[in-house]
């Protein structure tokens, strides 16, 4: 390619402000375009659904965005057939959170213990592998028989789902601790418990925290499935009831509510992660969002 020298362009040296302004503008434009494109995707998706459901397919089975929106509006203004929507959400979220806390704590404790004790880990490995292979979601039905229709059966379901998600990460995290760091701490005068507290736990923290994202997703699934298996309230109960009355809009509406709850929780956990892991070099944000 030859260089066309039609008019001599006077190249002025860029000032610092110009460089910064140019960069700011590029960042701004990129962010705006990202959001516009996202909006376009949502509009295209919902619009085509709305049109197809209006003209070609039966909205009784497939529902459509306007019906779902109307159902959501009805729930939040008038309430569901079984009481306020806030009560249903509170029921599900409290089950999920309670089970999540217990399951995560148990997972961390057992994971760290087995991660530090090769012998115990060897002894228990086949049992843990087997327990992990069991389709645990089915236990929800059993728990309804054991613990009744109330809170207990849902929390139990959540615990068995959350436990394994956290356990395996805590285990790996505790096992992969840098030998050098432990030796160094011991030379500096740390006793066994101090090594655990000041070396093993902090090293495992990034592993544990990354598992909490997935684990909270599991917690919500556990609570909803538990309610679905048998209950008197909760978002899962709404879904079960909507299914019984061929109310597809109701199922979608409940799904949306759970999705929003999961996103809020995801944000909270991400926040916690950033606070606890301030010491890490800026990490690439690849939080694996759980799929509900």
């Amino acid at each position, binding site marked *: 390619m030859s260089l066309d020298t039609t008019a001599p362009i006077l190249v002025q040296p860029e000032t610092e402000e110009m460089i910064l302004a140019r960069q700011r503008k590029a960042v701004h434009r990129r962010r705006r375009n990202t959001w516009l494109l996202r909006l376009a995707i949502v509009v295209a998706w919902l619009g085509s659904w709305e049109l197809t459901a209006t003209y070609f397919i039966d909205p009784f089975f497939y529902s459509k965005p306007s019906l779902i929106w109307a159902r959501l509006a009805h729930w939040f203004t008038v309430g569901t057939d079984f009481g306020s929507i806030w009560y249903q959400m509170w029921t599900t979220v409290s089950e999920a959170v309670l089970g999540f806390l217990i399951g995560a704590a148990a997972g961390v404790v057992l994971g760290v213990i087995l991660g530090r004790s090769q012998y115990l880990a060897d002894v228990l490995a086949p049992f843990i592998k087997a327990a992990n292979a069991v389709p645990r979601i089915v236990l929800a039905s059993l728990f309804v028989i054991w613990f009744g229709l109330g809170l207990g059966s849902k929390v139990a379901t959540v615990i068995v789902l959350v436990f394994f998600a956290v356990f395996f990460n805590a285990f790996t995290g505790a096992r992969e601790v*840098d030998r*050098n*760091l432990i*030796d*160094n*701490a*011991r*030379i*500096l*005068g*740390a*006793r066994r418990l*101090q090594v655990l507290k*000041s*070396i093993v736990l*902090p*090293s495992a*923290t990034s592993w544990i925290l990354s598992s909490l994202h997935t684990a909270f997703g599991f917690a919500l699934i556990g609570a909803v499935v538990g309610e679905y298996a048998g209950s008197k309230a909760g978002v899962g109960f709404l879904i079960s009831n909507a299914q019984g009355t061929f109310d597809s809009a109701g199922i979608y509406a409940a799904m949306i509510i759970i999705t929003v709850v999961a996103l809020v929780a995801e944000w909270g956990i991400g926040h916690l992660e950033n606070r606890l892991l*301030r*010491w*890490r*070099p800026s990490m690439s944000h690849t939080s694996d969002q759980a799929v509900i």
Partner: protein
Amino acid sequence: MSSPLIELIGATKRFPSGTGSVHTAVRDLNLTVQPGEFVAVVGPTGCGKSTTLSLVSGLQPASAGEVYVNGERVTSIPDGVGYMFQNDAVMPWRSVLDNVASGPRFRGVPKVEARETAADWVERVGLGGFERYYPHQLSGGMRKRVALAQTLVNKPRILLMDEPFSALDVQTRSLMQDELLRLWSGSEAAVIFVTHDLEEAIALADKVVVLTTSPATVKDVFEVGLPRPRKVEELRITEDFLRIYREVWESLRVEVEKARMKGAANVA
């Protein structure tokens, strides 16, 4: 002369090599270190220098022979031992100040007091102003300073150093060597400094111990009569330094060549 601070008598370390045989890392090693003495241990790569240190630190028990620190047989980590590892061993989740305060905290010193002592040491190793930084925000040389302060804050009578500066670039390394000598000169601690860099060994130490190729045992011991205080960079080009260097290298060269032959035989 007073009784030695560190004494290894016929120390031997053997462990399973993983391929069914038993590997002898250190064989029949005799070494004494006096209080306040700076001893450098050199030997071919992979000969068992680090193992020698872990025997003295009590991190690993000897398979045979005896190891005494302070006149007492080593069965666990002895009192007054500091250890600087080859790789970074600072805690990435603690700030510079909290890293340095770790030793006193582990030993039960109240938090405020531990931090005061630590702040003093952070200053002494030349990191004043970086107290709140996390290790990943520091350069390699600065992290070594943190490790040094972390070790020295416990006032060790014995300082074990396992190629602590080998990962640093040449300029930073000689800077750290000077820093080490400056900090050590006021401490009266005995040092065992393991390195494969003969220049470093002679520049720092009172006594250079040459180990044989694996399994390691003491081949020769050279006294380094160079006056202190020393400036590492300037010392390196003096006649006396070069004379000692040639003398020690004559002894070390044979072992390095043996190690190379063995390495070549393993590859073939």
